């Protein structure tokens, strides 16, 4: 058997966390803990890049598969990657070290525990994207609630308890129905192995209910309108690193789940429920964009913009067109980078001024120019300007949507304009204008670590904006195969 590279990716952060657990916790700036955590996550990132290099782009079958008996005759511990999941793994391993670097200023107490939580979170998130067994997937999917609950609850802002509870209970409520569906699938087909299930398919008469059960979980996690209300609360109260993880990776679990499970396992039900998804996505795009326009809190604005962007993602997935699904995946990767960057930029000024209100700021461009330039890059990427990764995703999604349903595509395109409106308006109010607040004059520009993190994020955003080929090549074959499988399944009906 080959070297279990995926398992080591999953386990390494946990091992790092265990190591941290046995180091002594010191008050203040605990450098040892930080270096250990950083080292672990960087090594993990390098392993994942190595994985990408080894990855064979010309086939859609799962690679690096590990299959071990876990519960005798029932569940196998099965992991593997294909073109769809590998990008999310790299996104996870890329964002985590940046989060760890960013804790410098924002986390004042119990730094060691915070890093442990982040590392364990990373393990679970990678697990979600590797899992090829429904039960294993559910295990990782749910387990992520524990560290995130603690991150929001212990290190969050003033309304942290409310937000943490809301986050936890909403997600749990959505997920339990998925558990019922997973066990039912086991009794219907006799296996929970995703690859096997792709081959044998699930009887049509069960598909609708099972699809709805999975949907209840993914819709909450995505989050889709009208169950999105936990997200703004969680984002606003979470510490910067927590918001980054939440926006960049946790939300992507649901989009990934839609592609992998809803489309793959229930093709006929997916076809049937496409109008529902379209309606909810379009409402999310338009409605939450309007809400975002009216926000006075920067983090809340970005949170609502996340809901709108995820609306594009769900729309793209259910167009069932090559472009649509590819666009959705690229949009998710891009949104992972952009929203992470935006939350970090808000974090930068929050650490200095301790206010997230837009009205506190204004005229930053003359005080902290470096910051303003990077902020501009991210704001433009968020609204989907050509030349940034955001454009590629949105463009492909809309192209897929036009092929499938003209009306929906037209309405969704309006969302692009609204997106530009709230992002530019935010940028104008924060960066341009007169300096009204005298305290602002004292703040300093980006320090070295902040500059490093933000440029790390800006580089791929611009790079993939101009040259998206590496991403598209990786996912193309897998997506084509997914669509082929989907249409053959439909034809069988």
């Amino acid at each position, binding site marked *: 058997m080959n070297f279990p590279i995926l398992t080591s990716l999953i386990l390494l952060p946990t091992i790092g966390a265990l190591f941290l657990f046995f180091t002594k*916790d010191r008050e203040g700036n605990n450098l040892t803990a930080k270096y250990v955590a950083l080292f672990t996550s960087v090594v993990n990132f390098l392993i994942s890049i190595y994985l990408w290099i080894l990855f064979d782009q010309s086939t859609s079958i799962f690679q690096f598969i590990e299959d071990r*008996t*876990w*519960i*005798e005759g029932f569940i196998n511990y099965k992991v593997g990657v294909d073109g769809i999941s590998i990008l999310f793994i790299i996104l996870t391993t890329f964002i985590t070290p940046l989060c760890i670097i960013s804790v410098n200023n924002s986390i004042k107490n119990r730094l060691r525990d915070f890093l442990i939580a982040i590392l364990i979170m990373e393990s679970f998130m990678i697990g979600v994207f590797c899992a090829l067994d429904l*039960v294993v997937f*559910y*295990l990782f999917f*749910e*387990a992520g*609630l*524990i560290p995130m*609950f*603690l991150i929001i*609850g*212990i290190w969050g802002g003033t309304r*942290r*308890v409310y937000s*943490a*509870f809301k986050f*936890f*209970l909403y997600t*749990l*409520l959505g997920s*339990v*129905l998925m*558990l*019922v569906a997973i*066990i*039912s699938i*086991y*009794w219907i087909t006799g296996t929970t192995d995703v690859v096997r299930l792709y081959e044998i398919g699930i009887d049509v008469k069960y598909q609708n209910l099972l699809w709805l059960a999975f949907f209840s979980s993914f819709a909450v996690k995505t989050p889709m309108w009208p169950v999105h209300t936990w997200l703004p609360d969680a984002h606003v109260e979470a510490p910067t690193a927590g918001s980054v993880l939440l926006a960049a990776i946790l939300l992507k679990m649901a989009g990934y789940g839609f592609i992998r499970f809803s489309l793959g396992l229930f093709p006929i039900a997916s076809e049937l429920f496409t109008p529902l998804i379209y309606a909810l996505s379009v409402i999310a795009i338009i409605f939450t964009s309007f809400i975002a326009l009216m926000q006075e809190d920067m983090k809340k604005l970005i949170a609502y913009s996340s809901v709108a962007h995820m609306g594009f993602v769900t729309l793209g997935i259910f167009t069932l067109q090559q472009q649509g699904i590819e666009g959705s995946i690229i949009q998710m990767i891009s949104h992972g980078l952009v929203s992470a960057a935006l939350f970090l930029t808000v974090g930068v000024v929050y650490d200095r001024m301790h206010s997230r209100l837009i009205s506190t700021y204004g005229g930053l461009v003359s005080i902290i120019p470096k910051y303003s330039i990077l902020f501009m890059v991210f704001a433009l990427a968020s609204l989907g300007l050509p030349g940034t990764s955001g454009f590629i995703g949105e463009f492909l999604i809309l192209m897929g949507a036009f092929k499938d349903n003209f009306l929906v595509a037209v309405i969704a395109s309006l969302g692009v304009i609204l997106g530009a409106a709230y992002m530019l308006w935010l940028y104008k109010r924060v960066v341009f204008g007169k300096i009204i607040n005298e305290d602002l004059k004292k703040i300093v520009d980006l320090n070295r670590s902040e500059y490093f993190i933000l440029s790390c994020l800006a580089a791929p955003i611009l790079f993939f904006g101009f040259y998206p080929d590496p991403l598209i090549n990786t996912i193309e074959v897998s997506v084509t195969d997914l669509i082929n499988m989907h249409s053959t399944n439909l034809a069988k009906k």
Partner: protein
Amino acid sequence: MENLNLVLPEIFISLSIMFLLVLGVFKKNSSKLIFNLSLFVILITTIITINETFSVSRITMFNESIIIDHMSSLMKIITLISAFLVLVISLSYLKVLKLFNIEYPILILSSVLGMMIMISSNDLIVFYMGLELQSLGLYVLATFNRDQLKSSEAGLKYFVLSALSSGLLLYGCSLIYGFSGSTNFDVISNQLSSNEYALTFGIVFILVGLAFKISAVPFHMWAPDVYEGSPTTVTLFFTMVPKIAALTVFIRFLYIPFINLLDQWQMIIVFLSIASMLFGAIAAIGQTNIKRLIAYSSIGHIGYTLAGLATGSNEGIQSSIIYISIYIVMNLALFSCLLMLKRKDQYYEDIDDLSGLSKNHPLLSLCLLVILFSLAGIPPLAGFFAKFYIFKSVLEQSMYFLAIVGLLSTVIAAFYYLRIIKVIYFDKEKEKYDSDQSLWLKFSLTTSTILILIYFIFPSQLIEVVSRINII
């Protein structure tokens, strides 16, 4: 001549009880000696049980009134081990409360003897005898802190209500006897197949009596008061050990004498299960006392166990037994934490007393965190797997309503577990608690927490042991 080796554990433990009692009467200040001897007795009994009965697949003795099979031996072993752990971790508590008397270990031993008889019973009369023997011990244990009003109240309440339920149970037994002409389970099973109304009455009465013993809703009223009033270690005993015996008897009643009437009792069990899960989850939200909260949470957990029984399949029984085993480990860990909340010889048991615990006692809080998430059933902790097996067997029988209600009530239950975690981790800290805990307490806490934490690595072992149980 019967092979007495099979009942050697019972014989040994009853002889030891008598010996210890006599020793305690004649020897002054012998509480320490008797305590240690009792521990020893339990250990020996466990070893005998494992040696003599573990490999026996099914043997009946004494006119088929006693049954030794895989279930009985496994449940006896679980009972004995739990009783042993309860005893060792109550040591320091009893000393602090000045309750360190000879009666405590002896009462526990005799109660355990009663349970072992219950577990092995294959006859209504033997079953009732065992039940009363264990209850007698429990009544006295509940009032053990007799200078405290609440403790006496708990004992009295338990006694009155328990006597009532025993009455119902006996009435049900007599009805069953009337219809089948025998007290033996196997004979009853062969006789009962008709659809007489009065027979249903008999079943209902027996189920009510049993539901009372495991505190399933709507026969749960005694549990919160008794749990709160009794000394903490006795509460621990209450939440763990009698439940095992009662569950075994429940399984035996349902699946041996009443198996032909499955469609009649299934609905009752489903109702008990749903009511317990929902009520346990909702009622626990408002509690401020941890022991009361545990009482309600144990009602909820019994609901899940009953859901496994309601399926009418071997998998269901096995999942219930797995559930109760994992529940016992979690409960033991939780109570070990509770017994550590001591400051200057005073024990604290309100949720507020946990406030900010993570600042001063990071390790203890971490253990509590693991335990509470596990009780809430969040993966990858042991509690999740317990629920997972239950729902797996429930869904095998296509009982979707039961599964969905059960899972929704886990969400409600998650709320109050999260509330405790919130108090521990998010709230302002209070004074430190004593850090010099007894070694046994630390041992039981760390072992059980680690078991909960790493159960997901070796889930097959427990299943393997339990899967030998084939009742139907």
